[in-house]
């Protein structure tokens, strides 16, 4: 028997994630790598519900639910509380959705990154406010339908580049990852676990409910996002050294990725080709940074 990710399971089944939830897959991987000596703080996001209602929990590590905008600082506070009591080993993870990271949590994450607080910030990005019913966030990609960007008025303008923003803080470690590639994610989680200071991991976590997809395609889409260069896998050391983790020999057209998703169904041909152009340009610029 040869397993490519650790066999230990820390997260319990019975949790409240929708069928095929990319976010719950991400948590399962994160806990496998970080292990029992870990504490989580989770702001308002799907995971505030997924873990289960009072008096239950599914993560089997200490978890402090916190206010929407406070994931990063709550983790910093927890870490400080532990350290001052002599515990320097426990991993503290801020685990937030894209809304809590790209939008309302921006101030706290920037503060914690600038102080280089010794925490790991993981955003499981499902590209909208899914828990409140699929409203657009600044992580929603151009072209997508959400309940606040109806098809007649779909999201215009690019997704905020959170990774670049974090890299600009010159934090020790920044990485992108996808639930479609758990072996790559594993390496990044291990790297974060063994690095001092502020670590930021951006995990693409497809959401069947919000993306209007069949739950069976979550991993397929998480892979396609990478294979189309929509969501390239790379890591950045000290905000300066860019390394591509998965080279795509022949990138697939974004149409391949779009066709499984109801949220892009309304897009006219010219918009799709505009977006294809954008994806290619973005990747070209990014490629220049790879060492």
């Amino acid at each position, binding site marked *: 028997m040869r397993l490519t990710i650790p066999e230990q399971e820390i997260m*319990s*089944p*019975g949790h409240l994630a929708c*069928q*095929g939830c990319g976010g*719950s897959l991400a948590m399962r991987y994160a806990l496998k790598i970080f292990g029992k000596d870990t504490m989580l703080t989770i702001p308002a996001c799907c995971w505030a519900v997924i873990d289960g209602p009072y*008096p*239950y929990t599914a993560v089997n590590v200490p978890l402090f639910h916190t206010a929407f905008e406070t994931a990063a600082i709550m983790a910093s506070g927890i870490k400080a509380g532990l350290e001052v009591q002599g515990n320097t080993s426990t991993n503290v993870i801020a685990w937030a959705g894209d809304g809590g990271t790209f939008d309302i949590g921006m101030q706290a994450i920037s503060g914690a990154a600038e102080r280089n607080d010794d925490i790991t910030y993981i955003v499981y990005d499902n590209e909208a406010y899914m828990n409140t019913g699929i409203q657009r966030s600044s992580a929603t990609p151009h072209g997508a339908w959400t309940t606040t960007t109806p098809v007649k008025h779909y999201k215009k303008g690019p997704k905020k580049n959170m990774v670049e923003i974090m890299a600009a803080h010159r934090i020790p470690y920044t990485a992108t990852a996808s639930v479609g590639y758990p072996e790559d994610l594993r390496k990044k989680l291990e790297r974060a676990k063994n690095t001092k200071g502020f670590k930021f991991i951006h995990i693409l976590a497809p959401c069947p409910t919000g993306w209007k997809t069949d739950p*069976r*395609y979550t991993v397929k889409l998480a892979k396609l996002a990478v294979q189309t260069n929509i969501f390239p896998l790379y890591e950045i050391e000290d905000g300066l050294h860019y390394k591509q983790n998965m080279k795509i020999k022949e990138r697939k057209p974004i149409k391949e990725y779009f066709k499984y998703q109801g949220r892009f169904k309304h897009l006219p041909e010219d918009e799709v080709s505009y977006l294809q152009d954008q994806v290619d340009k973005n990747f070209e610029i990014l490629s220049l940074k790879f060492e």
Partner: protein
Amino acid sequence: MAIKFQKSDKPIKIEGAHDMPPMPAALGSMLFNKTGSWRNVRPVIDYDKCIKCFICWKFCPEPAIKIVDEKPVIDYDYCKGCLMCVEECPKDAINEELEGK
């Protein structure tokens, strides 16, 4: 004394405030919540075709696929029927069966 955390798959009995900690601190595991009832299609592993690559295990978001005697085994108490395992199986070794037939 803190109320002990119950690790079993049984629901927690709370009669009133005196059974509760001062703050909403969890007392038990979500294991009590048998999400298998959500499923309308059941993935069934055909062990004749299975090559034990554990890709199905790897991608189960619950996790509801266990490794038993070096084989992947679906725990139908918790499998929600997303069918990601069916989709990702490289040998088409997982079949779909409608529930309630």
